[in-house]
């Protein structure tokens, strides 16, 4: 049984370790044997204008997408968990749709729409599509919290004369903060990593995944690809640990993080 577990995790992680090892290899050829340690590819990556632009663009898009996506997603979560209305299941289905529809099809559709409306492709078009496709993740995470929320506390505050906005600021928001921070970190990584949607809506812009994609055929660029990829990987792992840590610190501690973790991961997708 443990041989099976070890084999599965080896399949998942060994390629990434080898990538990291090659990023430190003192050779322009990405092949065995290792020729000694060197940080030259990291400094070459830092000096590379294209790398700086691609990583900078990804950061810029992700930083713009996070606050908007979290806001829209939280609004949807409130609308869907706190009211009863006709068409509610239709609205819920619509909000869930981006989690199921293939990114490729969404990307083609968005490209089609932008070209029909003669909207030039730019970082803004990438951002708009990222917000549309990522806010349902936020809705899923925040709804999970809102559903378990004890509403009698709010009603008690209201009966005691608190204004609705006081209830929101003093009772609802503090309880939601771990979910909001977790969603923000998740959407950041999601947007930074997304290849498929960006690829179709980028025009002449590059982002980090697009840069990797367009450089894999250039043998001379590969050591730099290794270095940048390893660096990004490291940052992503730290971010994921941060999400984990934040959810553990909540009242309820470890056990509170457990049910949310699968929730986080099932809303993630790997097709790009």
């Amino acid at each position, binding site marked *: 049984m443990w041989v099976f577990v070890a084999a599965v995790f080896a399949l998942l992680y060994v390629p990434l370790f080898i990538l990291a090892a090659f990023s430190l290899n003192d050779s322009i050829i*990405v092949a065995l044997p290792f020729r000694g340690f060197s940080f030259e590819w990291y400094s070459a990556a830092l000096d590379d204008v294209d790398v700086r632009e691609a990583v900078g663009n990804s950061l810029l898009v992700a930083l713009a997408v996070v606050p908007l996506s979290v806001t829209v997603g939280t609004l949807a979560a409130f*609308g869907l968990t706190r009211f009863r209305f006709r068409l509610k299941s239709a609205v819920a289905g619509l909000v869930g749709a981006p989690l199921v529809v293939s990114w490729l099809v969404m990307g083609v559709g968005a490209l089609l729409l932008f070209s029909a409306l003669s909207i030039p492709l730019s970082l803004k078009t990438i951002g708009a599509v990222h917000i549309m496709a990522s806010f349902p993740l936020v809705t899923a995470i925040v709804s999970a919290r809102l559903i378990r929320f004890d509403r009698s506390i709010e009603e008690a505050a209201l009966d005691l004369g608190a204004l609705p906005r006081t209830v929101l600021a003093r009772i609802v928001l503090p309880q939601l903060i771990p979910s909001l921070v977790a969603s923000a970190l998740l959407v950041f990584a999601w947007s930074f990593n997304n290849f498929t949607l960006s690829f179709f809506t980028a025009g002449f812009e590059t982002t980090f995944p697009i840069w990797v994609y367009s450089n894999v055929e250039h043998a001379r660029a590969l050591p730099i690809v290794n270095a940048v990829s390893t660096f*990004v990987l490291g940052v992503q*792992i730290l971010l994921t640990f941060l999400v984990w840590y934040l959810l553990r610190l909540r009242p309820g501690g470890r056990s509170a993080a457990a049910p949310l*973790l699968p929730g986080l991961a099932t809303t993630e997708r790997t097709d790009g």
Partner: protein
Amino acid sequence: MVSVAEPRRSWRRRRRLHGHPAKYLVLPVGLLLVLLIAPMTYLLVVSLRPPSITGISGPGGPTLDNYEQVLTTDFYRQVLVTSAFIATTSLVITLAIGIGLAYILAFRADRLEMPLLLLLVLADQTPTITKVYAWRILLGRQGVINSGLERLGLDDPIDALLFSRAAVIIVLSVTFIPFATIPVYAAMKAIDLSLLESANDLGAGFMTRLTRIILPLAAPGIFIAIILVYIPLFSEFIAPTMVGGTGGYMIGSAISDQILDNGNWGVGTALSFMLLLLTAAAAALSYYLARIKQLSSA
């Protein structure tokens, strides 16, 4: 599931407290109508119009020409067959591994449960492009596996590793493991342990417990895993382009090449709409099956 209807008063009060639901839903719904529903509708319209070399679509009335081209040309038929083969094989492999891993995590891992789950989520959170690229380093002609074999005295490198159907299946089956595992794990975790204990006390063996209790109760999770894995597998185009070569050419690669490189919107949109239909069918079927399983196990 038993749910007691809340008194109406409470809902009315909630409206007074929070205002009308439209206040919250206008923005999300508007965004989806403009950037999801409108493009999908337009996609269907373009796929039903005559193709054009210069623009998105040519003059003339609605036609099924684009679909006919996809379904009758040998090239596209081959692409559809390859995609179905790769997606289905990868689904079966990744699901078999995922169900096994989910079982171990849910019932056998004890103190290792949380660390292993975290490792699984970490693997899921890394950029897809990086994972596929890392596999390329391993599988290449001069890649780590081939040069390792050479060192062991086998100086005849395996040519077929990179740029083949097998390479795409290996890479996809591995990268989708976290995806297939986590929903099944969540469903298994919800199983009441006393059921398993009493089955054990009554003399049911491991296989009986697995096939009569665990798998039926985990079925909704398995169906979620199937939707989450099968739809992206069908529309995958990073792995086919980066490690697939001609043998691993899939629908996703065809859509991307036709639209971005050849400006052939007709075929590109027809293929995209077929993917969308497949998605809807898979989602509806899984939803239906998951509901039946839930009802019959309740």
